[in-house]
């Protein structure tokens, strides 16, 4: 039987949810306008006053915020509460420029914990469970979010952080962990290591995993589920909006329910900024309607996905977002074609290869090159060069069918591509270095 953490919200009727969102949005816009000069200036520039926003249908009147705004406003420009009321910060990894810092009041933390508690409950977690949190702790939201959610549910929490895989596995066995929370690439690595150590999934008590913070494919889900003997649930979030738990998967494992009582989701055309109807693929935009310290209105996530409404078989009415096809910053344009690493990963797993791979993009004589290093499958190893080259050709052919462009595939030794304990580095784009 499906269990809910907050049935009233998770299964609210559309009318009830709309009314709640309307009230919260109106109050939030007023709060932001009064306390955040940066956004007030944007609204004034657009000629929008808080009184113009009467409900969710007026959302489109509000200006967007982008990551560039967050960088401009660093560190305090989007803060809506005095620092004396803030209790914590978190920060993005800052790989592509200045870090983004988000602030939390105690109430913000409590609401975030509840969002993660809903995710853990949807994955079958109760206070009887032992929840191993192997996301990184620290500025990264992964560890703190699931740790908080696990406490809220009342699970015995193992705040492992990422890394030290031998110790992860030892605690998993000795303390009987039933739920594992980490990035999907780290889950795959733990699964691989368990098999190397000769441990069978039957020797573990694990039943579920909550994996997020990086894009992963359906094929990777099945492979992790098999290697760890669990059901694997996706979770979505971003530091700018709170962290993991903005959306979570239910037993249907088909899209993630957005915690709409806290975050209003829109899909827009990334080119024009115009809202798109439900079901169409576009850029996901979030408006925080309960956050106090760092309330972002119409924040463009650069994640491309679609929304679907309607009652889910799990009983929840919360709108569902499909697994993002990729963050628009993950998208590479190679020879004019849009390429997501997740597409390549799908082909690799379908063809029986490990989901550990490295994509290298470069520009030689004004033409883009795409090189993909793939760990060879030891079961397919042949002493004949032509057989091995045939494997490379067939894989290149399958990737070409998926992407529409010809890659060069390089088979390398198993386990020779660096495993990640946090977010995996899959792409090296050398074209940027030449600019």
């Amino acid at each position: 039987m499906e269990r809910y953490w907050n049935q009233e919200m998770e299964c609210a009727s559309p009318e009830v949810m709309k009314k709640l969102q309307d009230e919260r949005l109106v109050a939030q816009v007023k709060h932001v306008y009064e306390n955040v000069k940066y956004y007030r200036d944007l609204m004034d520039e657009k000629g929008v006053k808080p009184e113009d926003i009467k409900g969710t249908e007026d959302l489109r009147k509000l200006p967007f915020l982008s990551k560039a705004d967050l960088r401009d406003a660093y560190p305090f420009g989007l803060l809506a509460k005095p620092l004396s009321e803030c209790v914590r910060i978190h920060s993005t990894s800052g790989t592509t420029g200045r870090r983004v810092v988000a602030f939390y009041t105690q109430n913000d933390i409590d609401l975030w914990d509840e969002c993660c508690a809903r995710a853990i409950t949807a994955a079958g977690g109760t206070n009887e469970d032992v929840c191993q949190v192997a996301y990184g702790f620290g500025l990264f939201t992964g560890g703190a979010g699931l740790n908080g959610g696990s406490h809220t549910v009342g699970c015995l929490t193992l705040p492992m952080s990422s890394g030290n895989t031998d110790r992860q596995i030892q605690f998993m066995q000795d303390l009987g962990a039933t739920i594992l929370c980490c990035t999907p690439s780290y889950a795959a690595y733990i699964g691989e290591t368990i098999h190397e150590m000769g441990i069978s999934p039957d020797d573990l008590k694990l039943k579920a995993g909550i994996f997020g913070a990086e894009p992963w494919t359906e094929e990777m889900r099945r492979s992790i589920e098999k290697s760890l003997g669990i059901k694997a649930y996706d979770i979505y979030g971003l530091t700018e909006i709170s962290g993991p738990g903005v959306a979570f998967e239910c037993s249907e494992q088909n899209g993630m329910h957005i915690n709409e009582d806290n975050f209003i989701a829109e899909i827009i055309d990334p080119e024009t900024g115009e809202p798109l109807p439900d079901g169409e693929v576009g850029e996901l935009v979030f408006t925080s309607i309960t956050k106090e310290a760092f309330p972002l209105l119409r924040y463009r996530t650069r994640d491309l996905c679609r929304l679907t409404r309607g009652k889910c078989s799990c009983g929840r009415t919360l709108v569902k977002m499909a697994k993002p096809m990729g963050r628009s910053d993950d998208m590479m344009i190679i020879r004019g074609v849009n390429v997501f690493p997740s597409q390549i990963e799908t082909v690799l797993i379908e063809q029986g290869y490990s989901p550990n791979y490295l994509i290298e993009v470069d520009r030689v004589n004004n033409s883009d090159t795409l090189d993909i290093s793939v760990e060879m499958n030891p079961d397919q190893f042949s002493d004949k060069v032509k057989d091995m080259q045939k494997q490379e050709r067939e894989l290149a052919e399958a990737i070409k069918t998926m992407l529409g462009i010809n890659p060069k595939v390089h088979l390398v030794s198993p386990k020779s591509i660096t495993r990640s304990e946090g977010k995996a580095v899959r792409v090296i784009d050398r074209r940027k270095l030449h600019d």
Partner: protein
Amino acid sequence: MANARQISVFVDNRPNQLAGVMRLIKDKGINVRALSLADTKDFGILRLIANDTDKTVDTLKEAGYPVTVTEIVAISIPDTPGQLSRALDVLGGEGVNLEYLYAFLGKSDRSVSFVIRVDDVENASAALNKAGIIQLTENDISEM
């Protein structure tokens, strides 16, 4: 008659890869009798015949190398002009397809040995036998 087994190992095309394999083999006191390295731009396939096939395979697998074992034909022919040509004619005459071959040190300085990888070991072996060409078993090679 029992043909010899050849061990093939996948090695990355990077410095120190072959050295790593040979170091492992050395540490186990294994003697390599015959060896060839096929290279592509991405990787190499090291083929070897050792004096202890099972121990070599276990050692390499334990170290995480992709390994495969294939049956090959090994011949020993007089070190005079035309001998290899004759042996190949025998195989060609039987319609045996040859994948690759490599020479290795034989028992005496008057003969020379070859590892021949064919698609049909049974047929190749019977044809060579009929033509009176000496074939080496795994035991023969390990005792060389």
